[in-house]
């Protein structure tokens, strides 16, 4: 009996998202020519890889019952850092490693403030956002391009796999998928991952059950920091430049993606795989609007708002229904 009931309650929001994604995709395929092509599908991944990676980090933090608003700013910061370092003639690989290290440290710092002084995550990461954003302006006030860079060019020219008629599976979407996979394995099959869920469900109980709450939290934010930094690097590869104005407000997209993916903001409930469909759906909405091709900017905003709303409603509804069933 329980076995049969368990499917809806646990997987419903996620399943709903998948359903809606497929639905939206079908609509696009029917109404626009050249929409139902491999290129569009691959572009979804290529254009949203950085968002996806950020969403993995955000997802983990949200599962731990926190929130991370610093994502966008950290992406911009790492971009600027890599650009600056390479401009200073430092080996690109090294620059990337440094950037990643900085990202992790940044996350750990935030985590420490939150965990060991119980400051509200919203606030600390907001501070982090200001810090990183300001920092990237201190590095350089205007965008820096990384042209003629052997490493990036190599990545671009060689690390790609042709799928026929001019469509390429490129490095960054692969990186995204790998990160996502690692994220899923991490959250579902490692003790630390489960601890993150545990403190997300109920910190007090988790503590009494012997979960090292503070350390786990710090870890979660560290991982998020890493993801943001990696997203920043992917974005830099994607743009071949760093720009302090990049990804303003991206954190909101990431959060939206995670929520749409069926992870509850209260923490402890949901699956990282959902974030994939959250990201793809957001991307899909944009592509649909672009294909439609004469929507005012304000309508774009309103439509996205409405769609987010629809998602939330549907999830609430379905979850309520399945609760009733139980």
């Amino acid at each position, binding site marked *: 009996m329980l076995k049969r009931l368990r499917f809806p309650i646990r997987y419903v929001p996620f399943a709903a998202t998948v359903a809606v994604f497929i639905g939206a995709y079908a609509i696009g395929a029917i109404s626009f020519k050249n929409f139902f092509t491999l290129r569009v599908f691959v572009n979804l991944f290529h254009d949203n890889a950085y968002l996806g990676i950020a969403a993995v980090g955000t997802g983990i933090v949200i599962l731990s019952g926190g929130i991370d608003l610093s994502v966008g700013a950290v992406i911009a910061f790492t971009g600027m850092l890599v650009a600056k370092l390479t401009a200073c003639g430092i080996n690109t690989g090294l620059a990337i490693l440094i950037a990643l290290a900085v990202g992790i440290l940044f996350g750990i710092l935030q985590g420490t403030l939150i965990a060991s002084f119980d400051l509200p995550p919203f606030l600390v990461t907001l501070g982090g956002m200001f810090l990183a954003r300001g920092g990237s302006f201190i590095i350089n006030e205007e965008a820096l391009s990384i042209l003629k860079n052997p490493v990036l060019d190599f990545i671009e020219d060689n690390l790609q796999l042709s799928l026929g008629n001019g469509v390429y599976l490129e490095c960054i979407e692969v990186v995204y998928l790998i990160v996502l996979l690692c994220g899923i394995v991490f959250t579902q099959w490692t003790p630390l991952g489960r601890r993150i869920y*545990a403190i997300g469900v109920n910190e007090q109980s988790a503590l009494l059950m012997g979960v090292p709450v503070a350390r786990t939290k710090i870890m979660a934010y560290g991982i998020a920091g890493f993801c943001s930094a990696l997203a920043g690097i992917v974005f830099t590869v994607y743009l071949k430049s760093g720009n302090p104005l990049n990804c303003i407000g991206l954190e909101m997209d990431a959060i939206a993606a995670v929520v749409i993916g069926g992870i509850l903001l209260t923490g402890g409930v949901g699956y990282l795989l959902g974030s994939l469909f959250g990201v793809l759906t957001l991307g899909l909405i944009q592509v649909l609007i672009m294909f439609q091709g004469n929507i005012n900017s304000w309508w774009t905003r309103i439509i996205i708002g409405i769609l987010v709303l629809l998602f939330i409603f549907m999830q609430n509804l379905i979850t309520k229904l399945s609760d009733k069933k139980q």
Partner: protein
Amino acid sequence: MDILRTTGISKSFGEVQALKDVDFSLEAGEIHALMGENGAGKSTLVKIITGVYQPTNGSIWFDGADRRLNSPQEAEQIGISTVYQEVNLLPDLSVTENICLGREPRKFGFIDWKAAKERARKALAKLEVDIDVSANLASYSIAIQQLVAIARSLDVECKLLILDEPTSSLDENETHQLFQIMRHLRDQGLAIIFITHFLDQVYEVCDRITILRDGCKVGTFRACDLPRVEMVSKMIGKSAEEIDSMGHRDFSSSEQALGPVILKAENLESRGVVGPLNFELHAGSQVGLAGLLGSGRTETANLLFGIASHDAGHLEINGKVANKSTWNPRKAVKVRLALIAEDRKLTGVIPDLTVRENIILALQASKGALNQIPRRQQDQIAEEYIRRLDIKTPSPEQLLKNLSGGNQQKVLIARWLATKPELIILDEPTRGIDIGAKAEIEALTDDLCKAGMSVVFISSELEEIVQDCQRVVVLRDRRQVGELAGTDVTMKNILKMIAG
């Protein structure tokens, strides 16, 4: 030989001194009861032994070495594991995880879920529980959850097992199962600290008893050398005679003519939850709701108070008919109904508000936001009830979270008495409350009845019901199976009905 020795343990929270210089020792292979009123410091002592709190002074010796425990998992590592009073597990995670969290079996560094489930099943099997371990904990009853919690602590190699009020949400059989397990473990050389308010349970399983009062240790005794009455008097610092007088109530009130019907339920039902229910309650009398855990007692209370809405039948309180769709707590309060709910932590306590604010809350709510009770009056009310219920707090402005469980419960009772109710529903009012407070509350309810107030009394302790109620409604499997009145109200009859 001793396995645990604490010397000169003291602990204070702000102005509240919870423990004063407590020496406590425990032998391997014994079941040791830790007794005391609420606020006596039992929970605090336990939390110190398990590393949740660090003592202000004093030292802990465990298993051959002095220990400085900074966290529960440090305690767990050296073999101290605990089952707390309120189920402290993770409802949104699976049973397996709740049992294995933090010590999952691994394969190449990854969790081996198959093995984990197996272990969970084994651990539960010891308690003769057989459930789907991959289902969410939330999908099981509190009793099961409690057993899962115990299973969790049995799952590790532990030398000292602490059971803090483990039986408060278990029914008879489950309790006896548990006791068997406890004895079994003791015989294997495990030391067990057992905290409970059920005296007979103490005498049933415990070898030694340590009594605390007001944060100080009164003494440690062999169970066989310590008569019940003496223990109680030591716990509450009152003489035996006083206690006798407290326990009894004169049945004159049952002889007095019944007042008008104040509560009338006809085929009252909420489908799939509880019902149909049929009973009446006369002003100035007590009706008991008897039944095993999960028999629908709390559900009934919620139905009457409008927490859950009934979808069939007729409910009339104080001459007001409760409308199916619109019946809610606010309306209930308006007709002079009050509910002191079972789950204090969740449904009653407002931790960050002061005692005063907590006391006047319901009264204020009934008056509505716009006509605020003048501050002076608020203080008077608070002072009055702190005195009447003998609530132990430094001042009315103390935050409620700094009070002990029993005193919190008293504050909640005060909150509802302040609304001058004519009908009050007491759902397990004495759960997790020591005998002293228990007697006080019983005495109080009697007085209230004498003063013309009616009481719906819910308790898993049949003695209480038999003693206090002229009329008992018996529930089984979320349905009303019968009603007893007057002289028929006896343990035997009730048990017969419950057993069915």
